[in-house]
């Protein structure tokens, strides 16, 4: 069939067919010249709710700018900025030395909010009396030294210890604060999860789970417990992030390449503006200004 079509086209024995095919080809070649500016934003699922809500509002006032937001984790966010597959990277930790070397000073690392990495447990665990733990107790759980909630004063149930993929920002911050090293092994881990959504779902669905989640993802079924510091229990709340007493808090960053488009830079300015920061507050994080 194709052979015949090409033959017809070349011999020109059917001028109508020829015109139609040429018209078709031309149509394919025309690119939408006035297409709306597209900004693709990739990375941390902790930063994602802020950015996607901001993108929605921003699109209403700037209909010519289309913003696509997708997750994958902080490591993916940095990698896509390095490989230039995204205009903006979302990162929920500091960039590592290796990453900085690859970024080569060509990006601005901008903090748009601060959050707390909460130690989250299933509702049943919380209600059985586990309202607070010390960092050492949490470390014991993650190292596999404590395997039953009973040993911590809770129900007689094995602990479902949820660890995260090694590239995740939340994992970096949590492991540094609790286990002492960003890439520390967690021998006690029962399973590995990825995004905040995935982790939240596993904790909610079980009655024996412990995990690490940004404070904005806590709800009735996924409770954040207090961390005991110097004999005082500190809850993962905005107030404790603000006064710096909660031990596992971190800045939420976006990585903006120096060579980024004007629209991308304007969007970042919007994130830092009063409206943008109002969205940060609404999601549940601490605004930076």
């Amino acid at each position: 069939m194709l052979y015949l079509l090409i033959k017809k086209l070349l011999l020109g024995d059917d001028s109508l067919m020829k015109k139609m095919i040429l018209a078709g080809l031309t149509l394919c070649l025309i690119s939408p010249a006035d297409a709306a500016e597209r900004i693709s934003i990739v990375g941390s699922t902790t930063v994602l709710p802020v950015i996607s809500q901001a993108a929605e509002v921003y699109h209403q006032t700037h209909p010519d700018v289309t913003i696509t937001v997708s997750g994958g984790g902080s490591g993916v966010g940095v990698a896509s900025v390095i490989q230039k597959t995204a205009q903006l990277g979302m990162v929920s930790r500091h960039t590592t030395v290796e990453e900085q070397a690859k970024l080569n000073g060509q990006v601005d690392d901008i903090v748009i909010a601060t959050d707390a990495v909460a130690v989250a447990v299933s509702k049943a665990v919380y209600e059985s009396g586990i309202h607070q733990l010390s960092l050492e107790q949490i470390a014991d759980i993650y190292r596999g030294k404590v395997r039953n909630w009973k040993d911590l004063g809770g129900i007689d149930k094995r602990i479902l210890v949820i660890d995260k993929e090694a590239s995740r920002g939340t994992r970096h911050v949590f492991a540094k604060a609790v286990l002492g090293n960003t890439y520390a092994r967690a021998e006690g881990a029962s399973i590995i999860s990825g995004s905040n959504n995935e982790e939240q779902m596993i904790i909610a669905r079980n009655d024996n789970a412990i995990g690490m989640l940004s404070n904005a993802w806590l709800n009735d079924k996924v409770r954040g417990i207090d961390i005991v510091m110097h004999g005082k229990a500190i809850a993962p709340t905005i107030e404790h992030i603000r006064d710096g007493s909660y031990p596992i808090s971190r800045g939420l960053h976006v990585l903006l390449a120096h060579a980024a488009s004007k629209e991308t830079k304007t969007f970042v300015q919007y994130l830092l503006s009063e409206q943008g920061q109002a969205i940060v507050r609404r999601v549940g994080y601490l605004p930076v200004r």
Partner: protein
Amino acid sequence: MKHMGNTPLVYLLIITGCVLAISCISVLLWFLGDASWQFWQAFGLSPLWADEWYPYESLYGLLPAIIGSFWVMIIAMMIAVPCGLSAAIVSSEILPLSWQSWIRMGMEILAGIPSVVYGLIGLWVLLPWLQNIFDLLTGHSLLAAGMILSLMILPTMMVMAQDALRLIPLEQRETAMSLGLNWNQRLCRILLPQAWPGIRSGILLGLGRALGETMAVMLVVGSLDRVPQPIYNILEPAQTLTSRIGREMGEAAFGSMHFSALMACGLVLAATAIFLSLLSQQHRGRLNV
């Protein structure tokens, strides 16, 4: 068809098709080999039986994921082959024609459902169920992954087997009946041996999908890099080669050792699939002689 055999166009199409297929396969293998070369060069073949995977400590043991992939494949085939085959026999040999098309349509719909949907069904339905039945810490397990996979390869298995059975000429069935063979004999002596090449293709296609499926497996397998204890324990969370690639590919910087190690996982998968395919080719050769 024979009268078309002489036209150059058909030859051209056949040759183009073959060349395309061969070059696709070789380009793929070359790419995998090239991208993982750095890894093999640095570690040799020892990662194949090393059991610790900590990319940030430069430990790349592939054994847990290889064992995981193996078990998941075995479980999936053990469920899907008998079920698919019996469904094919029932629908093509026993049920009236009008039912056949309905069953076939059902199978084709099953085949068209995106894998992430299967994964989510597994997450919501299968995992809690397994957890209750076996009293597990979490339902995330090799068994869950194998069961979800069996559901995914069932349509392929069944449709291929059904086609093979339907292609057996009516005369053969009539002859068998006139010889007075009973249903069992007809099935085991006439129908199944004749349909075997088609059934075998179904099994191979299913195997390929079972080995290569990522998304659904990733959601239910638990992604824990640990050799099952004991090795036949399929009720614990584990890791497969595909789920590891799926979880870590985004963060691995192009050209890094981590990236190369993930490509090595891909190469192991591809090599296994080719090996299985060759094995079955040999088997067929022996049958024909």
